[in-house]
């Protein structure tokens, strides 16, 4: 187990380096002038432009730029916004909100996804299996922002069950609808994954052997079908935790939740490249770390990996 972890961490290092390099290169080295992009539609002030270039080390060779960026990133020093605020404090303010939102979405998709997936997989071909399948297909096909609007319109405006928007300091109820919208697509995928896992595991030989032992149907399902189906589902959930953070952008924009996604969106509109790169770098790191956690979890759940 220890060796396995060490290997995974060592493999992670080039990926982290490569990823940050890639993000950095995409912003600062692609054709298209980042400084110009920062000005957006406004006329470019030459003096300010030069100042920005110096501040972001854009006048130095690319590799030096990157290394300096990396050094700053490691010390969480991401520079300042146009308004002079440190980027990191803006992020620090928005982060807790997104974490709260992402965790709620995570719980939502995990609980409902797994439960419906199991029901569907165990009772393949029954009418409620078909209903669950069709609903999950619809959730996958309808883009998140449309789901969001539909939720806003029906749950918020028409039936007045939940608040339409969240605002700057949202509570549990305020975040409920954004979290459901955020988790909906993943929930649908989890339903499909759980269903196919359960229905293929139930046909495994060792399940028949377990039945032949005289175990009750319930314990056969729990110990042999669900336990084994869990492995890929947990893997998916873990990876999804990382992408929920980045996926929160749409939900946060629609429901006016002042989290990371909202901040990213605003920064894009305002042309704050620095902020965007910082956030993307952070989220990518979170994503990579989540993947490492998934690997550990995977090893814990599947003895075949543990000793490999």
């Amino acid at each position: 187990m220890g060796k396995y972890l060490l290997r995974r961490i060592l493999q992670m290092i080039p990926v982290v380096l490569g990823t940050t390099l890639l993000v950095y290169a995409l912003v600062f080295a692609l054709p298209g002038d980042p400084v110009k992009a920062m000005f957006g539609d406004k006329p470019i002030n030459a003096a300010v432009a030069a100042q920005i270039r110096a501040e972001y080390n854009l006048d130095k060779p690319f590799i030096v730029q990157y290394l300096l960026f990396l050094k700053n990133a490691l010390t969480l020093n991401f520079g300042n916004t146009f308004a002079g605020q440190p980027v990191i404090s803006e992020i620090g303010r928005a982060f807790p909100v997104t974490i709260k939102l992402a965790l709620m979405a995570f719980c939502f998709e995990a609980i409902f996804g797994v439960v419906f997936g199991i029901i569907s997989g165990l009772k393949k071909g029954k009418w409620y299996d078909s209903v669950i399948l069709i609903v999950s297909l619809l959730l996958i096909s309808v883009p998140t922002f449309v789901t969001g609007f539909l939720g806003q319109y029906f749950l918020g405006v028409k039936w007045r069950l939940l608040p339409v928007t969240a605002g700057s300091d949202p509570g549990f109820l305020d975040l409920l609808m954004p979290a459901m919208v955020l988790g909906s697509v993943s929930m649908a995928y989890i339903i499909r994954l759980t269903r196919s896992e359960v229905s293929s595991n139930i046909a495994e030989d060792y399940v028949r052997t377990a039945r032949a032992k005289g175990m009750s149907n319930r314990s056969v399902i729990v110990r042999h079908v669900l336990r084994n189906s869990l492995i890929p589902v947990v893997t998916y959930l873990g990876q999804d935790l990382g992408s929920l953070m980045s996926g929160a952008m749409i939900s946060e924009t629609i429901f006016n939740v002042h989290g990371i996604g909202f901040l990213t969106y605003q920064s894009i509109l305002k042309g704050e490249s620095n902020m965007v790169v910082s956030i993307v770098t952070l989220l990518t790191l979170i994503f990579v770390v989540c993947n490492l956690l998934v690997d550990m979890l995977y090893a814990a759940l599947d003895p075949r990996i543990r000793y490999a």
Partner: protein
Amino acid sequence: MSDNESQESMNTSSTLPGQERYVAPADTVKLQDVDSIDESAPATSMWADAWRTLRKNPLFIVSAVLIVCVIFVALFPGVFTHQDPNFCQLEHSLEPSSAGHPFGYDTQGCDVFTRTVYGTRTSLSVGVLTTILVVLFGTLIGALGGFFGGWVDAVLSRCTDIFMAIPLLLGAIVVLQMFRTSGSVWKIVLVLTLFGWTQTARIARGSVMETKNLEFNTASTALGSTPLRNLVSHIMPNSLASIIVVGTTSLGTYIVSEATLSFLGIGLPTTTVSWGGDISNAQTILRTDPAVLFYPSAALAITVLAFIMMGDAVKDALDPKSRTA
């Protein structure tokens, strides 16, 4: 020996009820030739087999009809509407539906029906072009890694990991914020390809590695075939099924991605008609005029649904597990 003798001696006297000697009458069980071939059944290749399964799948029929319709609308929007989608008159702003304008008008006074019809082409071309590029590029990288193995595979796999670590939406945002004014669908296609090829590469790699170790490749080598010939004539054709499945399914998600990017205002500018952009514009009037938002959303959802259902159907038909190997 003694064991047998005793058994033998008991045979006649000691048979237990229900275990008497029984021989089925020869005419009740027809004895067939050893390993005879059923020549009556029609010959089927894997593709013919898949096609037969598909034809019977309602999921496939529904999605195929929808996709054909969508493609037709995308190719010939003029058949359905004679208006220019960018011809907007503010005086019509938010007018409800009327003759010739079944979906009514949006805030700018543009005909919603016309814009929905013309939006089809944008969405579909992004989906199709991205899928083609992703499949070509992803398959190339994945196949090379899987086929050569060793350091080639190590390098390519790490590259795949790096691109995979950047969430599609975030990566696209970083790149697209610099090209916000360009109205060409190609910028979306390229960006989606840049961050989307990894999944195909992984699947192609896995499939090639699996096929590479099958005995028919070894047999082919022993017949005098070269590794490269094996790759082209055995490995790739056998890996195709899984690549097709992932391609069909992801086509729908690329359409969603384009709409999402346009919705966020960093995809296509408003001068290019697209469903995502129109939905974005309509969100401000959601409370008063939900219909304006409804039509492009519905068109988008139906199109995506059609492709995802198609992906499911194709997966069922080509799934190696469901085939009698």
